[in-house]
């Protein structure tokens, strides 16, 4: 058994409104920054014990699909690295 760190990057699907991103963009402008778009998502790190990296990746993807991302609105990417 090895411990892996699964890093999930969860973002809103394309086209889904991101009010938090919009408001943040507005304030960045107010502060004088010249950004053009802000999207706010989640970065989730989960420690997983698994036999190997392939198993770890499979477990992580299942977690992502079943609970960490909301399939109606979000997509996710996950990378797994041993620690």
């Amino acid at each position, binding site marked *: 058994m090895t411990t892996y760190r699964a890093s999930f990057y969860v973002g809103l*699907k394309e*086209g*889904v*409104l*991101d*009010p938090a991103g919009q*408001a943040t963009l507005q304030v960045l402008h107010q502060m004088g920054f010249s950004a053009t778009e802000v999207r706010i998502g989640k970065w989730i790190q989960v420690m997983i014990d698994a036999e190997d990296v392939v198993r770890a990746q499979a477990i992580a993807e299942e977690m992502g699909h079943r609970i960490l991302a*909301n399939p*109606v*609105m979000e997509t996710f990417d996950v990378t797994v690295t041993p620690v």
Partner: protein
Amino acid sequence: MLTYKDVGLSEGEYQEIVRLLARTPNDLELGLFGALWSEHCSYKNSKPFLAWLPHEGPFVVQGPGGNAGVVRFNQDYDVAFKIESHNHPSYVEPLQGAATGVGGILRDIIAMGARPIAVADILKFGTNQRAHALRHGIVEGIGAYGNAIGIPTVTGSVGYSALYDANPLVNVLAVGLLPQSRHIGADGAKPGSVLLLMGQSTGRDGIHGASLLASQDFGTETESMRPTVQVGDPFMGKLLMEATLAIVTEGLADAVQDLGAAGLTSALAELAYASQVGVTLDVGAVPCRETGMSAYDIMLSETQERMLLSVPKSHLEAALRTIKTFDLSVAEIGRVMPGDFLRIYLDSNQVADVPTQVLVASCPRHVLPNKFTDRFTLPANSESAPIPLTIDQDLGFRVLRHPDCQDRSPIYSRYDSTIQVRTVWGPDHDSAILHLGEASEGLQIAVSAPSRWALIDSVAGGYAVVVDVLSRVASQGAVPLGLTDGINGGNPDKPEEYERVAGLVWGIAQAARDFGVPVTGGNVSLHNETESRAIWPTAALGVVARHPHPKAPVADRPDAKGLTIALVNPPGDPTLGGSVLAEELGRIGAYPRIAPDVTIKALNLMGTWARDPDAVGLLACRSIGVGGLFVALSRALMSRAPQYGADLRLSAEHAALDLFNETAGQFLVFLDPALKNSWVSRAQDGGVTVKILGETTDSPQIKIQAGRTVTFELHALWQAFREGGGSNHVG
């Protein structure tokens, strides 16, 4: 090429469109019809029975038809209020679905020129695992919107049944305060005015929400039609609210229409129809969030937080200036003209042209068969509910632990109920009471949506839910100003479902007439059916009332020992039909038909007493509903540290019926013992029965003598109430 099926229409409807236009519609036009001829927008199935509801009353300023009903409150203020449902979206995405439901009904109120001051949420949940998750998301969503925009959620209702597993109900009532000088509607647009679209940029959110999602049953094949989910933005909603109210206050618009179901299509068509004008729209001028959006996408998008304003040219500059101070984006998207049309242009080419009369008001309606309503006069036949011969502790605890009787604080403590600083009674009481600053009279808001009552005899259930909300009002001596109803049912294409929903409305209409309180608006949500399993027909009723002494409500808990406990208007022939206990005992049975005459008298008498409670020695009062007398009494006495208990004497054979029947229109009262005899005689003179049950004590228990003596410790009841956990229910 689109077909009529792609937009949710039937072949017959399509033929009718071709006939009315005298040509075939193009794709965009077909999309417009799909939206406006959907059940959700056209009410094609429900119009025939909604016509039964009485709309006239001494306080009515605006009945159904506008964005919300309006009733007169005092010489300065009116009150706008309405219920809206967001059932289907909340199943698909509970948090955003519920949040946008709150946002949507608030914009309806705002579009009347009213400032929202309260929200009430009426929820039905299933009992399985998924239903738990839905509940969590839905409650979060309601709070997320209401809390952030700053409107208190002051009361509500929750019920549970496995029938709601895949069809949770989310009905939201919003109430707004409307200075009489600020009236506006969608019906004042004048030729020459400019149409402004204000707020969020349009995206592909919720395309087909009204036509497909809310107007058809759920099944696996609807899965793929799911559009981009609408996301609520209460922050933008707040800015939009302030900007709209500022513009209306300054008199800069001649008409306002919010964008809700079917987005721009519905907003433009309804504004044109209501104002009896034509409108043109340049879709290219609509600010879009995404690239490559077609006219079709733009017209059918349900992006939230948008408002349509019709502004006379002379006020245009001032309106744009006001909008700018709120940091909102705004665009001139069209013109108001004389005529009867909705014309859409893209790059100065006309891409759609339809008469609004046809679009808004010509959808073929469901026609009721002859003598359809005859069936409603007789109560439904059903095996009656079983009646336990003796009462014991188990009965009481089972009812109190039932999810429909449990403590709601885990839900309502997630809602801000005190913002705006008017809440004298919030969700820890069975109706809300708001004081309105300088005005000596306050506003009472009560809602009710018992689910079981309409299960077998929907007419009886519809009638009783009206009696239930009016009883809450009577128990405070308040004057009901108007009712709003949210009707939720299954697939209207199935005759038996149609009949159940129609019966529900028949019952509501009868009661509203009998008690003389008009229904000024509401909502119908049909197709609450998943894989052919329909919900219980469910009516959510809301009432707004003028409260005579809002800073000193009639208490709902006794605060002394030795008070006389009495029951006002017990039914002569009680039954357990439709009650929680009956469900616990395995056979729900039909809810009783309420006797109008005596109940009208009882509510009038109670109202009179509660108006001047000191004069008659009325020290505390509760109306009786779900869970019956037992639950009402428990709620009046339980607390973390209970001080007062009760001693009751009931007849041995009748005790279970007396304690657990749920016939609406009864009141549990706590009286000054010195005045108890005069109560009984006064009631008798008024033709109302008052039954003395016992008195309050200073020991923290409810003791019931009914042949044998059964004692309930209040701390144990409290624990059951707080924790629930009947084994076969939601934990």
